[in-house]
């Protein structure tokens, strides 16, 4: 049994959240340079594998979309009302890519354990599939390291990166129980707290403005105001945004970010649900990705820190740019 793409994405987001911590450990333990290098190599391999998995999932979902109705959205004037749609059956995945992917994730978890760190103790539900899988994936994690180390992949680390300063704790603003909207882009699910949602607008006429970054989709007029459209896929995962993926992405809606005129283009809106703060693995430290507030455990997706994201977009920064 291999993990679903959603689970893989969950692992990916988890890794993004803890990436700064593991990098810190690596820099502190200088004599064990080999360990940190191999970790970086694994991260790179993982990114490639995730890319494969996302592409496979996206292809799959595209064929499924042809047979299913598109989600309906009712746009109220002030508060967007979203009609929840039943999620389709778990998509088929590139198994080989995922198995390879899982190995470095487990290995990374072992390395980060060395740090006394704040490991968020997640209340494990007895039926979650993640609990029943470790034994199987451990086998592959034993085989994997040799292969990875033999590859001469240059590590994709950001040397000299200054940690950003905008990670004001989102948790302070949110109630214990709060609503989030889930939306999807190129097979990747993202969540935005409804308190940070400015509205939802259908993608209509996009005016392209010259000389803007590749992730800047253009401008759309809405109620006599200009909305700045973000090519979400290009912004969130620029390294995976190939021409092939770009051609296959079909943006339908704009998720507007509260207090700004920025809108994230997305392919579909999944649903809006109430979740508890404890259901989110919150980012504990300011890091490279202030826009990522945490990971929603049950839905296995990243939750956006809208304020930080808006600040980055206002500054014209891409997801990997330093804002420090």
């Amino acid at each position, binding site marked *: 049994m291999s993990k679903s793409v959603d689970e893989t994405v969950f692992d990916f987001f988890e890794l993004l959240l803890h990436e700064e911590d593991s990098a810190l450990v690596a820099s502190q333990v200088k004599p064990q340079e080999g360990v940190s290098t191999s970790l970086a190599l694994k991260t790179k391999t993982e990114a490639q594998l995730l890319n494969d998995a996302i592409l496979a999932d996206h292809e799959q979902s595209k064929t499924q979309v042809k047979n299913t109705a598109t989600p309906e959205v009712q746009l109220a004037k002030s508060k967007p009302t979203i009609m929840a749609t039943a999620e389709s059956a778990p998509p088929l995945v590139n198994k080989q890519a995922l198995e390879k992917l899982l190995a470095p994730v487990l290995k990374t978890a072992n390395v980060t354990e060395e740090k006394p760190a704040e490991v968020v103790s997640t209340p494990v539900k007895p039926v979650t599939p993640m609990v029943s899988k470790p034994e199987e994936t451990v086998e592959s994690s034993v085989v994997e390291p040799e292969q990875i180390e033999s590859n001469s992949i240059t590590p994709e680390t950001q040397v000299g990166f200054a940690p950003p300063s905008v990670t004001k704790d989102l948790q302070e603003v949110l109630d214990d129980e709060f609503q989030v909207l889930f939306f999807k882009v190129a097979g990747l699910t993202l969540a935005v707290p409804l308190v940070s949602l400015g509205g939802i607008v259908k993608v209509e006429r996009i005016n392209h*403005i*010259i*000389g803007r970054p590749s992730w*800047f989709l253009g*401008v759309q007029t809405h109620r006599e105001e*200009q909305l700045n459209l973000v090519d979400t896929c290009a912004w969130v995962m620029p390294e995976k945004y190939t021409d092939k993926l770009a051609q296959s992405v079909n943006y339908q809606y704009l998720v507007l970010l509260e207090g700004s005129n920025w809108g994230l283009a997305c392919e579909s809106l999944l649903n809006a649900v109430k979740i508890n703060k404890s259901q989110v693995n919150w980012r504990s430290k300011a890091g490279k990705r202030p826009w990522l507030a945490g990971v929603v455990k049950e839905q296995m997706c990243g939750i956006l820190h809208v304020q930080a994201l808006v600040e980055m977009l206002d500054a014209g920064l891409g997801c990997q740019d330093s804002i420090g």
Partner: protein
Amino acid sequence: MKDSRNVAAVAASKDDAVLQWVTFKLDNETYGINVMQVQEVLRYTEIAPVPGAPHYVLGIINLRGNVVTVIDTRSRFGLQSAEVDDSTRIVIIEAEKQVIGILVDSVAEVVYLRRSEIDNAPNVGTEESAKFIQGVSNRDNELLILVDLDKLLSDEEWAELNQL
């Protein structure tokens, strides 16, 4: 009392001056240029290429005995080139004390805009072409992108053009 109101109204209208813009189309987007800088609009005429000219120069035309350099606007805006058709126009403009022509897909109309109706363009551009967008305005649910013709070329490029 009435006089003071009139003075206030005049002052307000001076702050919010009405500007006229000639609009043209390029790759399905509408752009506007200050009407004061537009001398005339010509139908497409044969443009003679100039050997050794910069890449942004399409060539020269003879305008009533004067030689006018024509700029490749699409290339300048980072857009792909397109076939010349019946609606293609050469807009003769004056910028940086030089008279040049810019090739556009079509010329639409002259619009009146109050200064207050002009918004800043999203300030996220890093490329050279981001500099010559001076603002945007929403008219009848269509976005008009206002071009600062003086910044269409850099100082060096204007100088280069002068010596062509």
